[in-house]
């Protein structure tokens, strides 16, 4: 994992509280699991049907029925519980998931999120993402701050088809931590060595910059 990605997922892991139920999206968000502080008990939900997502099994000990939502063999920790898909999404939609971490193609000032489709190109389908961002109590976007070409992904208005409207709570990138509020996107933390000017220059949305901005750890 690159230093950049490690910085992002480490910071995301610090959002969780003892007793939280968390759903981690596929890709970078999955890696957050490796950095959850050991002094808190966080249960992970796998939307394909269980709570208590554990680490990968030892080689040769894979169980065909125990996989994560990406189809990868995993384990279920003691205290886990299995259920069907309607229960899984009743938990999600019903606000019983304390936080979800997902990647994004675009996020905007109103907390709108686009992360499921690039018209004319990639159409994987929304899977559980639309339900997760609408239902989870806290929606945390974990992503690189700009596209590979350096274009901003935090916009005034999303241009891609939306996943959901007004749902994003926090955005964590390699440059900083931002909170989406009624007043706009507030800069809460800056990565070491990054200035407010730099992060703003890579962000289309106007960042609200309070007098005190913490150092991202």
């Amino acid at each position: 994992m690159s230093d950049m990605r490690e910085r992002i997922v480490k910071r995301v892991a610090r959002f969780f509280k003892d007793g939280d139920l968390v759903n981690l999206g596929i890709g970078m968000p999955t890696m957050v699991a490796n950095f959850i502080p050991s002094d808190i008990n966080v249960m992970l939900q796998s939307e394909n049907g269980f709570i208590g997502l554990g680490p990968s099994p030892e080689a040769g000990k894979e169980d065909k029925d125990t996989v994560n939502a990406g189809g990868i063999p995993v384990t279920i920790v003691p205290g886990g519980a299995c259920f069907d898909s309607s229960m899984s999404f009743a938990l999600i939609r019903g606000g019983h998931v304390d936080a979800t971490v997902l990647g994004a193609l675009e996020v905007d000032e109103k907390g709108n999120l686009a992360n499921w489709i690039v018209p004319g190109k990639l159409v994987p389908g929304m899977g559980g993402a639309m339900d997760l961002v609408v239902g989870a109590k806290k929606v945390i976007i974990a992503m690189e701050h700009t596209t590979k070409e350096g274009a901003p992904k935090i916009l005034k208005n999303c241009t891609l088809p939306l996943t959901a409207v007004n749902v994003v709570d926090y955005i964590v990138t390699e440059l900083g931590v931002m909170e989406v509020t009624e007043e706009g996107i507030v800069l809460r933390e800056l990565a070491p060595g990054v200035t407010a000017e730099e992060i703003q220059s890579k962000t289309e949305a106007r960042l609200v910059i309070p007098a005190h901005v913490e150092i991202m750890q």
Partner: protein
Amino acid sequence: MSKLKSIDEIAEKFSDNQVIMIGGFLAVGTPETLVDALVTKGVRNLTVIGNDTSFPDRGIGRLIMSRQIKKAIVSHIGTNKETGRQMTAGEIEVELVPQGTLAERVRSGGAGLGGFLTPTGVGTVVAEGKQVITVNGCTYLLELPLKADIALLKAWKADKSGNLVYRRAARNFNPLMAMAADLVIVEAEEIVEVGELNPDEVVTPGTLVDMILKA
């Protein structure tokens, strides 16, 4: 932090005017020790949601007798004549809901749905004041979700993280209510260590449960 609580710690959570869901069907699957604590504390003006008002000496029926209920949302009051008397005398409000609709309204509340369309009650007094929606030529009532401040549940086994298993007809509304309340309190016949329950047999995931009492 341990979810195992004393009855005193649990009773602290009760106060006047709360909306309380209570599991059980004619008191089978009702947490009687938790109802004891409600009666002892004497909180008043409760809105109680449950299948029925049970019998005068059991479950929700006891809260009818002790006059702690302002409004009951139930499917049946026939086994407790005092409920009918209080209703007729205007002392309490009773909202009678078809049993399947009641179960589904509680489920909807817990599942984050805004409501559902049911054919049950179309053309009856149950339809009064409700939106009627026609889909593909069939007529349905729009029924709305129910939620509560507290759910008082009965389980057969609980592990210390709150995973619950129920037994026979004592399951009824309990798993639905576990989803639909801000604070979920469970009275369990048996409490086991985390890991002792097979994940496939767990009906209510522990994450939904806040407090556990040994029955």
